């Protein structure tokens, strides 16, 4: 881990146009604020965990960083270059350095290609002049790194288990020796014992290759284990950002507190005596978010100011930032 900042996201906003049922074809579509003013930095070798529940915008954020969805405004500075201001062809060269792994391990692999071809694709795309033997070597190299035997090169994705498919996805992401891998819920679809294998694998590779990771998940326990720092999102807004241990020991935002209290711990003594902080009510509609603080409709601390003034995201202590008028 070094102090070199490789990624800086500044005030990123992503909106979607949605039309609701019953609208006439000429009515203007409404705006859905999927990502609202998100900023953070990431250093080489660091892991940023992004947690939040359905509709918090974490997947949209990931896709906006790699330009898979258009951003409304903001900057994505990769090694100093604002990706959002570059054209598609200019962005292409940076794609070698930022890779992604996905939630559904099987669906992220083309069922008609064998895994050798799948893993080799990034290499062939960016370095088409590489000789066949070199390609084979690199593929075999990276397969060994993720714990897959060489003789499986000609197999097809459906012949593998979920955990193995995820390893194939990781191998594909590694072959170009990227600096950052964005992991979008990579272990949610896997069994517990396999989750642990994949998480360990990611951490090992990270150390070996000085890789930065953005790890998106809804399982706070897994995220805390793998991340250096954690960002908590709610309805497209950042509510808290701090180091992993800090977030667990001193959660300042009411939502974070509720989130942590809701995570069931595998220990009957702790669980049965736990004081649950329950959030009542439903997630508000992102098309019509609450005025002021978006969390106020479900917050037990909400007062009048919360509906009038949106709390700023400020540093409450060293490397611990919160957006709340009444944070702890």
């Amino acid at each position, binding site marked *: 881990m070094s102090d070199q900042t490789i990624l800086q996201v500044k005030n990123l906003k992503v909106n979607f146009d949605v039309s609701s049922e019953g609208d006439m074809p000429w009515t203007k579509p409404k705006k859905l604020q999927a990502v609202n003013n998100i900023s953070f930095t990431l250093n080489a070798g660091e892991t940023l965990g992004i947690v939040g529940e359905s509709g918090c915008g974490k997947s949209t954020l990931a896709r906006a960083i790699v330009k898979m969805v258009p951003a409304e405004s903001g900057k994505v500075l990769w090694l100093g270059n604002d990706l959002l201001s570059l054209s598609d062809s200019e962005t292409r060269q940076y*794609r070698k350095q930022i890779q992604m792994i996905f939630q559904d391990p099987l669906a992220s692999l083309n069922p008609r290609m064998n895994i050798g071809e799948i893993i080799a694709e990034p290499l062939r795309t960016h370095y088409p002049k590489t000789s066949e033997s070199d390609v084979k070597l690199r593929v075999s190299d990276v397969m060994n790194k993720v714990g897959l035997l060489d003789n499986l090169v000609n197999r097809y994705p459906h012949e593998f288990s979920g955990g193995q498919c995820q390893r194939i996805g990781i191998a594909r992401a590694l072959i170009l020796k990227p600096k950052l891998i964005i992991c979008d819920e990579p272990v949610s679809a896997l069994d517990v014992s396999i989750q642990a294998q994949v998480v360990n694998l990611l951490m090992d590779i990270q150390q070996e290759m000085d890789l930065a990771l953005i790890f998106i998940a809804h399982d706070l326990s897994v995220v805390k284990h793998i991340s250096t720092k954690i960002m908590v999102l709610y309805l497209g807004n950042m509510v808290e950002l701090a180091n992993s241990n800090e977030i667990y020991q001193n959660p300042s935002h009411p939502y974070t507190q509720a989130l942590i209290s809701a995570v069931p711990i595998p220990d009957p003594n702790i669980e049965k005596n736990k004081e649950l902080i329950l959030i009542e009510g439903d997630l508000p509609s992102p098309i019509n978010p609450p005025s002021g603080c978006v969390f106020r409709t479900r917050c037990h601390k909400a007062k009048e100011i919360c509906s009038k003034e949106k709390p700023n995201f400020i540093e409450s202590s060293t490397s611990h930032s919160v957006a709340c008028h009444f944070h702890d």
Partner: protein
Amino acid sequence: MIVANKKKIKDMAENFSESGAGRSLWKDARIRFIQNKAATISLFVLLAIVSFSFIGPYFAVWSYEQIDWNAMGSAARVGMPSIESGHYFGTDDLGRDLYSRVIQGTQISLMVGVLGASVAVIVGTLYGATSGYLGGKTDQIMMRIVDILMSIPYMFVLILLLVVFGRSIGMLFIGIGLLSWLDMSRIVRGQTLNLKNKEFIEAAKVTGVSDFKIITRHIVPNLLGIVAVYATLLVPGIILAESFISFLGLGVQEPSTSWGALIKEGSGTISYDTEWQLLFPLAFFVVSLFCFYFIGDGLRDALDPKER
């Protein structure tokens, strides 16, 4: 403390199965297809008919346009199917050998059907895949064009073209080809929309694979299944269209003939005790169509996207 057991893992990995080659989805589909008796039998019957159309002429005594003056005008008495006279299938009213004419008809009909379907498949697939993948306004415009073309009364236009520009095989192709790719493009576009959102397409985009390569390497191969099914169902459709045109008298020009034309002639003379003139071409026509439908059905079951 639990320590990883390397030997155990190696054993498990080798258990994976001995052969190095993978079991691709095409192989799985082939196995499933073969298990479908109707489809496999149909495949053989169709192949038999196709080989007949190539080999048959070597056994023919008469050509398809030669007139047997003995039989002309008196087909009911003299033109019956017989081995001695060389008229295996009998003769038509003009005394022409039905065996050779049926072979000729088979060649023409199958050719129109298969070639027509091929053109429709290629044009329809590329058009539909591009439209579906690009999405947005391009997709809207492309599909509206398809909608407009589809609303044209097919038969009407085809007949008009043939009457205005004269009857020829070329015109037949143009007329049929112009409109039969539309359905295919709709189907392919739908499937493409479905595929577009799959994660492996996202993965390819993030990697930086070009749009063209995504369409050709990732989308089209995953479309082939559904395309194959509809292609085999397109062929009979085109043969039927051509047969109908010929039945109306607007099809291929004499002395060339097709199943439709033969059926037209045969059905016209039914009351004159010359059933063979209708039955032979009809039999070939019906059997071939059934075969295509069974094969199409078999393909659809075999390629069912319930992979795994």
